């Protein structure tokens, strides 16, 4: 009997600890495992399937290099999206394509290639251009701003914080939360049809700043 009581009280405290631990570690409002992007209320796509193309004016700063020019983003097939960056005179710096899981470098200015720039940019641009279909967990976190909804997201790509606009459900920020290498912070402002009006991409590891302003479809 004593043994049972001991067992009972220890299991009760264990439960209490577990409850406290889960309560403290997750200020979550809700939690969903096995989340399927596109099927839930919150999508992982910045450019959804209705997006066709957008032309952005932009600046590209990496380390001490400062470049300006035009970014053309275009969906070339249902599973393919391309990003081409050229300077104002029209000379192409890079032309990348994401086709399914593949990353294709159609062209890269040789001086960039020498510094392995395509490899460096691959994951940062993937965050912007390709919806994450490998999400295994989305946990709603507390937000100081009632107009924003924040999720902690885990996927094959890593751990992220996704910030959504409460009313429209559109992504406003994607921020890698754990990984040291490939740490990216993507902010999206305003909407021009199916494309964001402004896009800021920052990766402190490689000192990369990309700022894009929408010009036309």
């Amino acid at each position: 009997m004593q043994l049972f009581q001991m067992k009972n009280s220890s299991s009760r405290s264990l439960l209490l600890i577990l409850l406290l631990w889960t309560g403290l570690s997750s200020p979550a409002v809700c939690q969903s495992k096995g989340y399927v992007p596109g099927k839930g209320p919150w999508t992982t796509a910045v450019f959804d399937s209705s997006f066709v193309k957008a032309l952005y004016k932009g600046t590209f700063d990496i380390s001490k290099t400062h470049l300006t020019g035009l970014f053309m983003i275009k969906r070339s097939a249902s599973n393919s999206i391309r990003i081409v960056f050229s300077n104002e005179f029209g000379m192409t710096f890079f032309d990348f394509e994401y086709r399914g899981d593949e990353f294709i470098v159609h062209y890269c200015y040789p001086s960039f290639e020498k510094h392995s720039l395509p490899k460096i940019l691959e994951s940062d641009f993937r965050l912007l251009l390709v919806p994450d279909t490998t999400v295994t967990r989305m946990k709603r976190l507390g937000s100081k701003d009632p107009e924003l909804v924040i999720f902690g997201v885990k996927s094959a790509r890593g751990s992220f914080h996704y910030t959504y606009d409460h009313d429209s459900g559109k992504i406003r920020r994607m921020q890698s939360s754990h990984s040291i290498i490939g740490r990216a912070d993507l902010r999206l402002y305003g909407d021009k049809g199916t494309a964001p009006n402004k896009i800021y991409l920052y990766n402190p590891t490689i000192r990369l700043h990309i700022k894009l302003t929408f010009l036309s479809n």
Partner: protein
Amino acid sequence: MRMKIRSLLTGILMFSVLSSSWCQGNYAEMKNPALFREKFTASAQKINTIEAGFIQEKNMSVLSEKIITKGHFLFRKENMLRWEYTDPFRYLIILNNGKILIRDDEKQNTLDVRNNKMFAEINAIIIGSVQGNLFNDEKKFSTSFFEAKSSYLVKLKPLTPNMKEFLKEIWIFFDAVDISVARLEMHEPSGDYTKIDFTGKKINAVIPDEKFLIP
């Protein structure tokens, strides 16, 4: 049925032959390039300033996309250039005595030409096309000359590794009347190309110093 297919094929074949010859602009190899060089040098010597509008068209072959930008161009001997985009965005480049000023909506930068290889090369191409010294530079380019009824075409193939990185060929079209540059085409290794058409040219108009001022 067979006849129909045959005539359709013949039609397609004829169309493709005709359209490809039209794309070439009926240019034939120039009979006397030395005479053209002479004419051009004489004409370029008389030019002190050029003012023109420009329409730039970037052709992205694989994406089947064209990006069209417009602006204003000023040139003053020897090496002053003002290249200003006004549509669909504002962007200004001034080149003066080895310095470049770049101004966009957000900020203004002053650079040394030597620190920005691609910029330096593109500016050299534009100024060299206008002044005519571009196709005399045998170390940098191999040159071939063509002519049509009302225009000349000079094709330049870059020889230096730096320029080969981003340019396959430069095509400069000259108006046969005043031997001034009418169009510039920059062909990239990827197959994409940028076409710049100069419009409303004013030769030797007075251009104030402030237009080329780099603070």
